[in-house]
């Protein structure tokens, strides 16, 4: 749920990166952090295990600046992708304003993407959220690897509702900002 404060003239929205483990969610956030200008970003916080796997979440605040008198900012979160961290994933989804589903394009991760998407829809349902109430975009990551599913296959299985989708190579930054821009615009349009 976005926060609109008319007294301090501030708007904050929450965007969550969701998807299977090792799919590139944290890589997206880290790339954004590395490229965005210092005055437009806050500190990047990672609650990770010793092996650098996300334990609870990564968090990056991004300031959009002053829009018609409102300081507008997006709070970007990732969830832990590993199957057994569902309790944490569900907590991060609470009050979400927009979601980026980061799918791993590799053939061997095909089923993991389906499971993760299904898990996301189930978790959203517990908060009475569905695809008609919260904007979602998909990102097909790791398009540079050799053994990947075609975009058509991924679209057919993961994206029957025809949500906006983007190809990416997050480690190189390809597609990262296109995805973020798309979800940010949808979140702004959805403000009510």
């Amino acid at each position, binding site marked *: 749920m976005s*926060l609109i404060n008319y007294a301090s003239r501030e708007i904050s929205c929450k965007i969550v990166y969701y998807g299977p483990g090792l799919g590139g969610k944290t890589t997206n956030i880290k790339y954004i952090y590395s490229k965005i200008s210092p005055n437009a970003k806050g500190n990047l916080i990672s609650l990770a295990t010793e092996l650098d796997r996300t334990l609870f979440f990564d968090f990056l*605040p991004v300031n959009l600046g002053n829009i018609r008198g409102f300081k507008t900012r997006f709070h970007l979160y990732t969830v832990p992708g590993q199957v057994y961290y569902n309790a944490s994933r569900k907590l991060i989804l609470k009050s979400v304003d927009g979601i980026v589903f980061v799918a791993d394009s590799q053939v061997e991760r095909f089923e993991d993407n389906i499971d993760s998407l299904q898990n996301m829809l189930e978790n959203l349902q517990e908060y009475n959220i569905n695809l008609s109430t919260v904007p979602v975009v998909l990102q097909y990551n790791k398009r540079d690897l050799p053994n990947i599913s075609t975009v058509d296959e991924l679209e057919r299985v993961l994206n029957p509702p025809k949500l906006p989708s983007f190809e990416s190579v997050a480690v190189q930054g390809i597609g990262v900002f296109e995805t973020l821009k798309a979800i940010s615009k949808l979140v702004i349009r959805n403000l*009510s």
Partner: protein
Amino acid sequence: MSFQIFENDFWAINETITKLLKMTNAISVLLIDKAGQLITSTGNISQIDTTSFASLSAADFAATSQLAKLVGENNFNTLFHQGENQNLYIQLIANKVILVVIFDSRTSLGLVRVRIKHATDELNAIILDIMEKIDSNKDNNVIGLDIDFKKQAENELDELFK
């Protein structure tokens, strides 16, 4: 639907937390929504990254709520973190926002606890009033966030993420 806070409510919240700060002699008091967004703060926050602090406080609370459920409690409405020099007292308000008091040895846990109870009652009433206003106004567009706002925001996004 957004959590919208209007001027009058905002100043009423600020008055309550400023009173709490003075009564307890705490270092600072923050009010955060459950999504981890800072609503307002008072006192000395110059040493704190309040954006990160708000996000982590909400996460702390969310995780502890789940712990409560695992042991058969509905919720833990209060959390207390004790450090060597500074302490945090965290209180859920109206099941909607989180009040955080940061204090040190210039005051005592007992005093903070008593004063927070008073402040909680006042804040409860304000937050419930805000929720009622949001509910009764939910079919109307958010004031000030018209089509021009959305267009300008999109232009800013194009500029920032180009």
